[in-house]
């Protein structure tokens, strides 16, 4: 079973990398980009076969390691 975790900086937390990407897009002539937020996707291959349990475990992984909830929010998709 695969799980996919999306980690994003919370709203209100400055994202210097996203800002740099926004500036670069502007200098390439892509007008009208008002904001860019950069996050990460983490894919996991799990031996678990129960989607509910998998989601619970991956959520625990996010809380403990994959995201820093002081500044980041996360979502878990099980596929």
């Amino acid at each position, binding site marked *: 079973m695969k799980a996919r975790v999306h980690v994003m900086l919370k709203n209100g*937390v*400055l994202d*210097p*990398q996203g800002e*740099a990407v926004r500036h670069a897009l502007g200098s390439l002539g892509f007008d009208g980009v008002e904001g860019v937020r950069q996050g990460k996707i983490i894919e996991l291959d799990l031996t678990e076969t129960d989607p509910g349990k998998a989601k619970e475990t991956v959520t625990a992984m996010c809380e*403990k*390691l*994959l995201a*820093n909830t*002081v*500044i980041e929010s996360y979502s878990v998709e099980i596929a």
Partner: protein
Amino acid sequence: MHAAVIVFPGSNCDRDMKVAFENVGAKVSMVWHKDTEMPAGVDVIGVPGGFSFGDYLRCGAIAANSPICQSVKAHADKGGYVLGICNGFQVLTETGLLPGVLLRNSGLKYVCKALDLKVETSNSAYTSGYNAGTTITIPIAHHDGNYYADDDTLARLNDEDRVAFRYVENPNGSQQDIAGILSENRRVLGMMPHPERMAEETHGNTEGATLFTSLVGSLETA
């Protein structure tokens, strides 16, 4: 005084920290990240600078979950002293021993230079040898030193006099120019600048050595 310096894969200021502790008369044990216990009688744990685990995932995140960090937390929980410098500060925020987090520098660049810091409080074992309000010159060398905490946390840090150092000129976007903070019991200090790199005459000045001298002095009179 007995100091332990933690060594992670990718630590690169561990030996500098050892020398700084030894120069003020401390006995130093180097402790590997896979160890689960501190050597007996450790008074202070130093978490050094570097790029532990290649800064993968987030700076300090993997190190904060390494086996030895349970002992670092236990040491702090029973009132022990912990000093985290640079990557060590990042590790301490990731363990939750200090509030907030260190984000990517707002200018996106790695910044390596000596700069002026204002000592905000002399009320800690680390800063008792400085006069509050004094300016000292200490180097920084980091890519992720932009201190971030929510407004409530910042207000608490200020109200409780827990900001140890502020930058005179903010090099990285840190909120309120914060360069170093103390835990609630004032025994855990995390700071991005490197006092161990300004600790001998050959370094340019010895203003960083005062931190180590103060710590030893406070512990020996305690």
